[in-house]
């Protein structure tokens, strides 16, 4: 019996969420009285793999084959299933990310496992295995029991946090048993924005809405995000207008995020928008309309003109940093 995590990497480096998975799985395994291992797919250097030991992972399996970088859903699910069988995993944990969402359902079918996505924090009980997840896009939570012997879950980002608990970890090569022909996802081109903070990985997110009035007014938003090392986001009308890309849209039909700090500039806070951000630890709203629903969801607010407040905030952040 053991707990297995699938650690995602990006350009050969583990994503922050992988360390959160490691921390979470270590705690869960301790409660269950079982061991904990990780499977890494694609080229990741030994020094990077060893970092998982800082968060309590005692055994790391690594399949360095570059084929995995195509994120082929069938192949990755097959490899993770093979790893789960090898270590006799009874709980397999993935991130609630683009990739985790793609792989976990397939994996659960392969393992005859019950699957719950977007789990918030540790299980509320181990016998029966019951977890809490968000439903109705943040309007409620559901405690859900998984009845099968093997369980597959995806962990909601920032719902547990990163906890260091250094151990000696062993790293071994893993062969997923796949050949080149098993990878049928053919990448023709990649448009990767480098050097930017990943929205779903960001501790701080600076988001703006229709109150910004036009695409060319985003300068101060980008400046503030840059100063804070924050991810950039926007509301639905903004991406529908084409002022910002769909990748930045947070809300019920866009991305669901849970940063420590969320700034909403000129966002009225329609129920659909709040659904995507309500798990944020702290929400700051700046809006000229004092009755805007965003203030009901916010922890801190300024009623005022975003174009007046933004330069002041930028100055204040600069001062705070120095």
């Amino acid at each position: 019996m053991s707990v297995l995590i699938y650690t995602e990497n990006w350009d050969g480096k583990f994503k922050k969420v992988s360390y959160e998975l490691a921390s979470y799985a270590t705690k869960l395994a301790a409660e269950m009285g079982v061991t904990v291992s990780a499977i890494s797919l694609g080229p990741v250097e030994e020094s990077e793999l060893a970092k998982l030991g800082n968060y309590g992972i005692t055994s790391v399996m690594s399949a360095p084959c570059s084929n995995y970088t195509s994120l082929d859903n069938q192949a990755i699910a097959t490899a993770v299933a093979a790893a789960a069988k090898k270590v006799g995993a009874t709980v397999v944990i993935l991130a609630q990310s683009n990739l985790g969402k793609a792989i976990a359902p397939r994996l659960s079918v392969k393992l005859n496992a019950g699957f719950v996505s977007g789990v918030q924090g540790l299980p509320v009980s181990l016998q029966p295995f019951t977890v809490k997840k968000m439903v109705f896009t943040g309007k409620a939570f559901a405690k859900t029991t998984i009845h099968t012997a093997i369980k597959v879950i995806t962990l909601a980002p920032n719902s547990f946090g990163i906890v260091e608990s250094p151990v000696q970890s062993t790293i071994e090569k893993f062969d997923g048993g796949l050949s080149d022909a098993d990878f049928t996802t053919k990448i023709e081109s990649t448009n990767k924005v480098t050097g930017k903070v990943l929205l779903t990985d960001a501790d701080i997110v600076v988001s703006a809405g229709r109150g910004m009035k036009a695409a060319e007014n985003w300068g101060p938003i980008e400046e503030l995000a840059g100063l804070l090392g924050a991810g950039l986001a926007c509301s639905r009308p903004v991406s529908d207008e084409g002022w910002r890309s769909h990748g930045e849209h947070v809300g019920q039909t866009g991305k669901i995020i849970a940063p420590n700090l969320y700034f909403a500039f000129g966002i009225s806070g329609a129920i659909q928008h709040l659904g995507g951000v309500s798990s944020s630890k702290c929400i700051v709203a700046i809006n000229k309309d004092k009755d805007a629903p965003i203030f009901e969801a916010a922890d801190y607010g300024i009623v005022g003109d975003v174009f007046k407040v933004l330069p002041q905030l930028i100055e204040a952040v600069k001062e705070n940093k120095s």
Partner: protein
Amino acid sequence: MKILVLIGNVPDTTTKVKFNADKTAFDPSGVQWIINPWDELALTRALELKETSGSAIESIFVANVGRVETEGTLRKALAVGADEAIRIDADPKDAFYVASQLAQVANGFDLIFAGIEASDYNGAAVGGMLAELLGIQSVSAVSGVQIENGLLKISREIDGGSQLLGMSLPLLAIVQKGIAKEPRIPAMRGIMMARSKKLTVIAPLEVEVLTSIVTFESPAPKAACKMVAEDQAKELIRLLHEEAKVL
């Protein structure tokens, strides 16, 4: 080419969510039901493909798992242009149950569209499970689908960017925002035509339930928002730093 679009029947996204007295079930009273927003975008894209690809796409089917009350949602899909509908007559118990039911009708389709999640239980599971049950490839976070000379070009979102993929059929595409711009609104003619389109009702298979919801909880009430004056940005930063400790 035959396309299948999976349709979820969900409460309107502006619904105030309520539960029964012991918080074990969703209270559907007074709820307006709609096509799951991502499924609706997938259907929109499927219709656009059919219109622009000459005779390459022969038909678009829609399918759901639900009781007779969910037929309004399927009829809406037919009214905007889907050719045929299939309803598997059962209450959707969990994602694996739904995927297993759909697997009995999804064979023989070249391209299957699923929404990335449903706006009710946010499971994000049925599409991937169905692909696995059918033994076909899937691509998730799909934000664009083109058919060029019979070849499938898929755009998908990755961390911090996007990719263009060349994929073979059959394929299950799990779609998100960006796949189509605006969903279509049924016209009177479409609504009339939908009445005579074929809607097949199929009996469910016996499938084991792997997960079940024990209780629902509403989010904890939020403390009142602390207001800061418009010219006090510095004070706001101080509060975030010293009080909320998030900076």
